[in-house]
């Protein structure tokens, strides 16, 4: 595995190729990536699969006649085909009205755990068995699905403007799910985690235990009626409520003027306690990196600073079209074009403890998971979804699961006027590090 990741960095042939490409195109950008992974999966309480993945690819953006063509192949030795196709596409493409990344070095470092290259199935099977045992000790009736795995990858971006950056990534992740189909009450709860390094088994088992404890409460039902409620929002659900902001600071929405924030830079649109930072260097964040998908060095930046719109996220193209400075936020896979996106979204903690917030939410709801909220009209601030896992709170405790009800909020309004508290505690949800949020006046349909 190690040998494979060094292949790109040492590939002299690729160096010769970019020299040739420079003579055929007016400008170019070449993106190469490869990776290997190993995952073990349990389904329905039993070991089901050991999966070993290998991936590679190369894509080129080439400029001919002032326009950009793009092509991709999963075969790393098809450089000539990819270059020829990109040049052939160029006459039809977008105008090259900005510059591909120039030479620039990141001053930061990225965590890399070489152990992720040496995972073995026995080690992962053992963790999965312990997850299953942990869950079953709490609820023997729950069916357990889980997976644990990781891998390494590497990428390289070369441009005709002198950039040549390489990056190695290591990753490790786990997923634990408990489910039980009872007549009239399907219960499911899950936890997942991802990191740039191996996650220690005791951390995974603590998450499995937490999911199982909550699962037991979810097996009890609690009644709910249509109305407005105080809601304690878990980081999993807060991630959904923040989507309207994420969509609205996206450079594409700014460029096309579909965002409500087009003219809002410097305006205070949210509660003073709301600060959102894009941090590509957070050592625990899996969304980070030293360079973005166009080879631009990344930056740590506040997007919302004390309630005020402070920054947009741009590719080179959207920054140019908007007349803004590039921000190093191009996100892409090797087979796709760069689009603006966040690296690690970090929300500033509050001053309340989670236990205090639960007490304050007496008679309200604890919102853990929303279903289908991604179909909402985020540009209008709307977030709607079936509450797939939510609990009624009494005297600071979760007393049972509420069902057959839906949440409907406008996040722009909610995060401006309805925040009662933000927790000191925070939790990683993929590339997002978020606290718990206490809000009032939340419309629940039932």
């Amino acid at each position, binding site marked *: 595995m190690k040998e494979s990741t060094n292949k790109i960095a040492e590939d002299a042939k690729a160096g010769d190729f970019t020299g040739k490409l420079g003579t055929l195109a007016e400008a170019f950008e070449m993106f190469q990536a490869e990776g290997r992974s190993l995952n073990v999966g349990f389904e329905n309480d039993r070991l089901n699969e050991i999966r070993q993945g290998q991936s590679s690819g190369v894509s080129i953006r080439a400029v001919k006649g002032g326009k950009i063509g793009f092509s991709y192949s999963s075969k790393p030795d098809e450089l000539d085909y990819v270059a020829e196709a990109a040049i052939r596409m160029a006459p039809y493409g977008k105008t090259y009205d900005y510059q591909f990344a120039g030479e620039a070095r990141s001053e930061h470092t990225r965590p890399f755990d070489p152990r992720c290259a040496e995972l073995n199935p026995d080690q992962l099977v053992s963790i999965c068995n312990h997850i299953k045992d942990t869950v079953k000790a709490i609820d023997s009736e729950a069916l357990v699905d889980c997976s644990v795995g990781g891998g390494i990858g590497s990428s390289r971006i070369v441009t005709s403007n002198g950039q040549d950056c390489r990056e190695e990534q290591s990753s490790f992740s786990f997923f634990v799910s408990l489910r039980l189909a009872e007549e009239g009450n399907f219960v499911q709860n899950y936890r997942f985690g991802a990191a740039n390094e191996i996650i220690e088994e005791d951390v995974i088992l603590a998450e499995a235990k937490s999911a199982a404890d909550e699962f037991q409460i979810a097996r009890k039902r609690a009644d709910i009626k249509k109305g407005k409620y105080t809601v304690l929002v878990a980081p999993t659900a807060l991630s959904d409520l923040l989507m309207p902001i994420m969509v609205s600071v996206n450079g594409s929405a700014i460029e096309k003027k579909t965002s409500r924030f087009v003219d809002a830079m410097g305006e205070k649109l949210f509660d003073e306690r709301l600060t959102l930072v894009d941090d590509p260097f957070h050592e625990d964040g899996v969304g980070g990196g030293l360079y973005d998908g166009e080879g631009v060095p990344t930056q740590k930046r506040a997007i919302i600073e004390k309630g005020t719109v402070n920054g947009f996220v741009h590719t080179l193209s959207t920054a140019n079209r908007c007349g803004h400075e590039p921000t190093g936020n191009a996100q892409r896979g090797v087979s796709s074009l760069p689009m603006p996106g966040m690296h690690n979204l970090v929300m500033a903690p509050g001053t309340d403890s989670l236990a205090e917030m639960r007490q304050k939410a007496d008679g309200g709801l604890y919102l853990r998971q929303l279903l289908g909220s991604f179909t909402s009209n985020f540009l209008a601030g709307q977030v709607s979804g079936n509450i797939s896992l939510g609990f009624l709170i009494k005297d600071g405790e979760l007393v049972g699961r509420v069902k*057959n009800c839906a949440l409907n909020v406008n996040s722009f309004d909610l995060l401006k006027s309805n925040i009662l508290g933000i927790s000191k505690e925070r939790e990683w949800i993929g590339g997002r590090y978020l606290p718990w949020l206490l809000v009032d006046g939340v419309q629940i349909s039932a």
Partner: protein
Amino acid sequence: MKDQLTELARRAEADYCEIRVEDSRQTSVAFQGKDLENVQESHMFGGNVRACVNGCWGFVTFNDLSTLDSRVQEAVRNARAAAAANAEKTVLAAVDPVEDVVKLDVKSDPRKVSLEDKISLFGGYNERMLGHSGVTSTNLRYFDTYTHLHFANSEGTWLDREALDMGMGASAVARNNGTTARGTASEGGRANFESFRGMEKRFDEAAEAAVDAAKSEVVEGGTYTVICDPHLAGVFVHEAFGHLSEGDNVAEDPRMQEVLKLGRRFGEKYLNIWDTGLDTGLRGYLPYDDEGVPTQKTWLIREGELVGRLHSRETAGRMKEKPTGNARAINYRFPPIPRMRNTCIGNGPHGSFEDLIKDVKLGIYAIESSGGQTNGELFTFTAGQAFMIRDGKLAERVRDVTLSGNVFDTLRNITGIGGDFNVQDGAGGCGKGGQMPLPVSHGSPHIRIKDVVIGGR
């Protein structure tokens, strides 16, 4: 290729082994606002080996065919490692081995249409939407993908299959007083590029819908009688019942087997639901699934009663039922799992749209869909457009209409099924287990459902 793959699969020291090699080429065109954002040609080549020992799978992907021998050994080694902790037997439903060469059968091949023609056609539609007063931006994406698949398994099946998939999704975006709304148009299929021509009226309607929706009010949340158009009803049956019917939900879950016992009543006598891979030309068409099983029409509900489900060979084997040809993977990077093809509600006895609406005092007419999600029991999906129904007639337009509900209650609450069955393909696809987008189709006539929870203000 045939000799190499069949021999390697046959020699693998496993209960079962299959090898898939996939070579696909895609052309895509994307507009954003007035810009031709991307014109792209891509080549994807790779494959996988799947081996089963004592009911446990080893799965390995590769991009380099020259290493195939080692990849087969890795897959077998992984399956054996997993099986060492497992005392079960491999249970795959029996199917007759098949050898077949499936050539493309197309009416109009997109590969014979010049790139200039495609750009002109879709660019014209894009400009048309932008020409409507109030439309501030647009998105339009078209793709066509040609795939050549080779499949061999250790039981002697060999398939050499060509496939074509096309899709186009477009949206017009309008803003009014800080409110943003969309109108959409879509088309798709596997056989006829000409179906993308002559769509001017649909793009005009998408633009007008966006402009009108941006001026409309958010729907008032609550419980309503809803009439779904055929497109949205198709999304509903896919999300709300199709996923529940997938065999991997049931095969190893005794409690779920009780809940989904064949013969259980799910709706009124006029409710009929099926999933089929036989409809040539639709995106859900599938002559063989990704385990080499011939496809079929599979009844799920007949006259309101549960009569079937969607199986891979493993889920069928575990449940001692017949395989249905529903094992699908989006590409070689993933193993096949039970998935839908073209999932439909059949025509019912309640006549036309006018017949369905006339008795609704207060309700919502929900049209098209911008997506949805289910967890087996609960679902959420959002209408592309919506109007209030007042005193049996269509009234004002409303926006941001999200339908939520319980699958079991909602199927029982279908109080009317029209007779205007229709399937409309698009550019999207189904997501499950990290595999998205899988080309599927869905169809239905207009349906009327009582007591649907609608999110809103």
